[in-house]
């Protein structure tokens, strides 16, 4: 199937898919590759993670907690020059396919040297505080 989406949107979808495929493989370095080198990760209930090395260690911890899949769906996306933003939702799953969390997320994208990457990434759960 040949997509009719504009190249930027196709690239964004490919990069998001790359993140999900890397998680399925348990490859934290592959997940971190979607971020800019000076990216910041702002997870819920925790400190900020800055730079790819820290971000890779965060996702490695998530993998070790048994999360094996993140199904991401872009709800809104707009690009302005070398910056873009995306609002989406995601479902995190464990090894048995069980849904471990449902989240909404915001990604600020940045294009560096012609390459789109996640520059700022924040999300939180749809579930009530336990």
């Amino acid at each position, binding site marked *: *199937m*040949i997509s009719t989406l504009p*190249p930027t949107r*196709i*690239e964004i979808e*490919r*990069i998001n*898919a*790359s993140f999900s*495929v*890397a998680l*399925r*493989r348990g*490859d934290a*370095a*592959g997940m971190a*590759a*979607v971020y*800019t*080198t000076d990216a910041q990760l702002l997870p819920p209930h925790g400190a900020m993670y800055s730079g790819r090395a820290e971000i890779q260690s965060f996702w490695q911890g998530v993998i070790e907690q048994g999360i094996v899949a993140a199904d991401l769906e872009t709800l809104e996306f707009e690009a302005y020059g070398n910056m873009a933003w995306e609002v989406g939702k995601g479902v995190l799953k464990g090894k048995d396919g069980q849904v471990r969390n449902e989240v909404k997320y915001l990604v600020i994208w940045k294009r*560096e*040297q*012609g*390459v*789109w*990457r996640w520059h700022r990434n924040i999300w939180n759960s749809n579930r009530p505080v336990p």
Partner: protein
Amino acid sequence: MTQEHRTTNMVRIYQLTLAEAAALIQRKYPLTEQELLQMRPLEEYDFLTFFEQIRPNRRRNFDAAALTGENPVSVPLPHEVDKLIFPGQVRTPGAFCFCSDLVWEIVPGEPGEPARLVLRCEYFCIPLTS
């Protein structure tokens, strides 16, 4: 997957003939990552070149062929079969790649030879360093 110094997202296209694909289906497991890495990609592009130049041209050719009825160019087969042929994702020393598009195509043969059925997989590759 040879050019690991690249920092841009890449599209690498691998191709197998029907006979090669059938042999993989018979052995009941797809190409291993190592086997794929030993193959040369049929084509390799940086992402924007592929989606701004190469793919639109192919789409025009696809549409023209459909209008004239000269070439049936797309032959979808069950996805279960496709999974037995190419690895879904590949990790190289410098990139994380996944098979983003998979299509059976009929391509013209050499002069005097019949057209051939081939399976092409487009790997989207994201560099691990930038």
